[in-house]
């Protein structure tokens, strides 16, 4: 059952990712990227990462990609015009890409023997502070780690977001007459 779910959503993710790279109009690429993020969110749920799956949908697919889609709609630049594509490069490049990926998969298969396998519900939190049936990636676990061990990076990222806000406002405002 887990294997079927993984296969379905992995295939959707790969097909959507190929679509991102291949489509000419940026908005089709953007929507395919939303599809990739959605299927990755389901794979995170399989790995017991509940909070990150929700954060992926809320932050990545629901805010960042909406920002991309806004900019594409505002600029309205149209589909990309392809010129100077050589078919020889396509014939050489695609098999090479597939070959390199196969070699990489072969090595990955060898480094991680079949001992560890992912089962839905296989990531349980440490028994000390967990309520029963809490996944290891639940909001409680992530929150405890975020506010104790990772407090400094958390504060630094809040300053980073402040910098980004100020930068975006300065770049996008109209010129003062």
């Amino acid at each position, binding site marked *: 059952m*887990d294997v079927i779910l993984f296969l379905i959503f992995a295939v959707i993710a790969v097909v959507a990712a190929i679509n991102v*790279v291949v489509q000419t109009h940026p908005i089709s690429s953007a929507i395919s990227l939303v599809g990739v993020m959605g299927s990755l969110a389901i794979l995170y749920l399989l790995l017991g990462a509940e909070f990150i799956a929700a954060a992926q949908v809320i932050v*990545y697919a629901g805010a960042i990609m909406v920002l991309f889609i806004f900019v594409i709609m505002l600029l309205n630049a149209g589909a990309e015009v392809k010129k100077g594509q050589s078919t020889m490069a396509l014939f050489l490049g695609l098999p090479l890409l597939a070959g390199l990926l196969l070699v990489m998969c072969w090595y990955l298969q060898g480094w991680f023997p079949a001992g560890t*396998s992912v089962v839905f519900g296989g990531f349980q939190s440490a028994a000390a502070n967990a309520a029963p049936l809490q996944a290891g990636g639940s909001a409680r676990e992530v929150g405890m780690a975020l506010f104790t061990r990772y407090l400094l990076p958390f504060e630094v990222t809040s300053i980073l977001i402040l910098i*980004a806000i100020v930068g*975006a406002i300065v770049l996008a405002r109209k010129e003062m007459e």
Partner: protein
Amino acid sequence: MSGIPISWFLMLSAILFALGVAGFLFRRNIITVFMSIELMLNAVNLSFITFSYKLQKVDGHLMAFFVMVVAAAEAAVGLAIILTVFKNRATLNIDEIDSMKN
């Protein structure tokens, strides 16, 4: 009940990352290049969370969380830069935005 071998997740992460690199190198539209960067970041997130499962620690989730936050900040500033470039050069093709002089 057998689960999914953990190397499959890493293979998927590698494939998505390779596709992101391919899009980054081959596409001429600057927004599509930016989206390929986001694809690469997502592939890396999957890798972090897979290793977090393997080691049974939650630290990988925290790393993925920080990657998401940084990606959000980068997307905001990057898109503002793209808007400004479009206002000045009226093109989104990176082949035509290749010199500082107009």
